[in-house]
């Protein structure tokens, strides 16, 4: 690579003694480690591994909660039913569209926000930091309502404010069509989650060594060249981590769709489809199969990021 990076100068990980001879001390330390961390590990497995295994099992049955007597084994039939149904593919396309659009816009916008925060005068930095945390902290459902009411024909102000734009009038029904409804869903998602990305990118920016920037400047590199050759390569880890988490988070989109469209006009996401099958229609078998399929897709995306883009998960961390 022709990019310019400095070796990480972070604190050193505790070097484990090459243990041919496991001393008593090491053994008791190991035991204590499992004793302390074991409960957390057990709880995590209990609340995720167990349910997904149960879902795999349930998905092999034709099982409706209102009709428990006629529960019968159908093998992979539920999967055949789902994968040959347009509903699944529409929800998949909607989910992918929302994910791609929101993550792409958020990355660019998040960068802009991070740059402003990094350069902002130190006097106003706390104000910016507090402001930017507010969308992150606001409940998704609340944000979805705010955006829905703003665009709605009856309660909204968007139509009267932007009536001068071609195609927008007092009776523009944003939630009446697939494209416009999804546009509003994306806007709400972008507003709510860009701050998280921008904070990760800001932390990444702070890791770019100032020395390299100065050196590039002295060598006559333009702002754009410095961005492409120095800044971006040095914050690759931060970018990939932000991208991974936001992609998987966006792929689970549910709250905004529930509040804004309830899946009307072909705006259903995969999560919403699973919810509708299980909770509304009580089709445990079909709902479980959708859940398992969604899980497999998420695992696939994660694997693609980790193997394909070589995201270093030692540097990644969890954000729900």
């Amino acid at each position, binding site marked *: 690579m022709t990019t310019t990076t400095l070796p990480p100068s972070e604190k050193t990980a*505790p070097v484990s003694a090459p243990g041919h001879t496991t001393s008593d001390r090491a053994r008791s330390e190991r035991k204590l*480690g*499992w004793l302390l961390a074991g409960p*957390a590990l057990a709880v*995590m497995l209990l609340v995720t591994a167990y349910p997904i295994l149960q879902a795999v099992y349930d998905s092999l049955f034709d099982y409706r909660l209102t009709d428990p007597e006629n529960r019968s084994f159908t093998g992979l039939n539920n999967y055949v039913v789902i994968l040959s149904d347009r509903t699944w593919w529409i929800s998949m396309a909607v989910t992918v569209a929302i994910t791609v659009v929101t993550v792409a816009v958020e990355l660019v916008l998040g960068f802009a926000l991070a740059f402003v925060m990094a350069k902002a005068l130190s006097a106003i930095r706390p104000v910016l930091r507090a402001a930017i945390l*507010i969308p992150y902290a606001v409940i998704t459902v609340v944000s979805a309502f705010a955006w829905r009411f703003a665009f709605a024909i009856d309660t909204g102000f968007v139509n*009267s404010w932007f009536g001068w734009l071609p195609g927008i009038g007092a009776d523009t029904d944003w939630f009446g069509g697939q494209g416009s409804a999804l546009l509003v869903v994306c806007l709400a998602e972008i507003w709510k989650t860009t701050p998280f990305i921008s904070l990760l990118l800001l*932390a*990444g920016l702070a890791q770019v060594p100032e020395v390299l920037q100065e050196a590039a400047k002295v060598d006559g590199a333009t702002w754009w060249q410095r961005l492409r050759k120095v800044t971006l390569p040095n914050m690759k880890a931060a970018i990939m981590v932000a991208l991974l988490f936001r992609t998987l988070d966006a792929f689970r989109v549910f709250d905004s769709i529930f509040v804004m469209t309830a899946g009307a006009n072909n705006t259903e996401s995969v999560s919403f489809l699973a919810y509708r099958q299980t*909770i509304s229609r009580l089709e445990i078998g079909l709902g479980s199969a959708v859940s398992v399929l969604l899980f497999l897709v998420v695992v696939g995306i994660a694997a693609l990021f980790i193997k394909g883009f070589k995201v270093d998960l030692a540097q990644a961390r969890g954000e729900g």
Partner: protein
Amino acid sequence: MSSKERTWWIVAGVAIVIYALFPVAWIVSLSFKAPGDLANGQFLPTTPTDENYSTIFTGAGADLFLPALRNSFGICLIATFISCLLAMFAAYAIARLDFPGKKLILGTALGVAIFPVISIVTPLFNLWRNIGLYDTWPGLIIPYLSLTLPISIWTMSAFFREIPWEMEQAAQVDGATTWQAFRKVIVPLAAPGVFTTAIIAFFIAWNDFVYGISLTSTSAARPVPAALGLFSGASQFEDPTGAIAAAAVIVTIPVVALVLLFQRRIVAGLTNGAVKG
């Protein structure tokens, strides 16, 4: 920095503040609109009224809103407490002990964090109905741990790795007992990390909608976001918009208060593990 450049950054800063606050300001403004005023097509109410707030606190919406508020606070605080407690032990082991399970635990936490929540809901919905946890507090607290525990472990491990643990021995050398060394040296160093982790975990639990709407059916356990999703007017002819807006403002107050009080810590908590690892 030239004064022209300075103006530029200030303009950009103001744009960020407007961006962040505009939808919040809108929902606040909406919550002060009278029913007849909702469709005025304007951002601000013609004459502000507190009618919507009386609806949710003492009027027709109170039966739905007040129990939900209590449930949200109770369930989220308990889930936050349990996950911080479990995470504290795990993070101590990860940061301080040399044992082979470290990678496994951090990896599991990561896997759980990216898990599609709805995939947990389907089997739990069925199981909870069979064992009587459906529509109860524990029935939500347990799945909430899948949201709060992974981030608690990551955030707290990142904080704990920065604690200078040698100071504990130093205190003991200076004559402190083990307990004194722990209480006087380690606790004050670890407390900010634990506290910050708790705030972030609470945000995530407070934000939940999928579990809340799927695993509850009455005000016995339904949290506020789920109640908001089900809000309808006192009669089907009354527009619930104003009441929803007022309830939305009320549930936003705690998180905004936490953000304003602890913004520096929250940012550190959200980012320090991400880029340092």
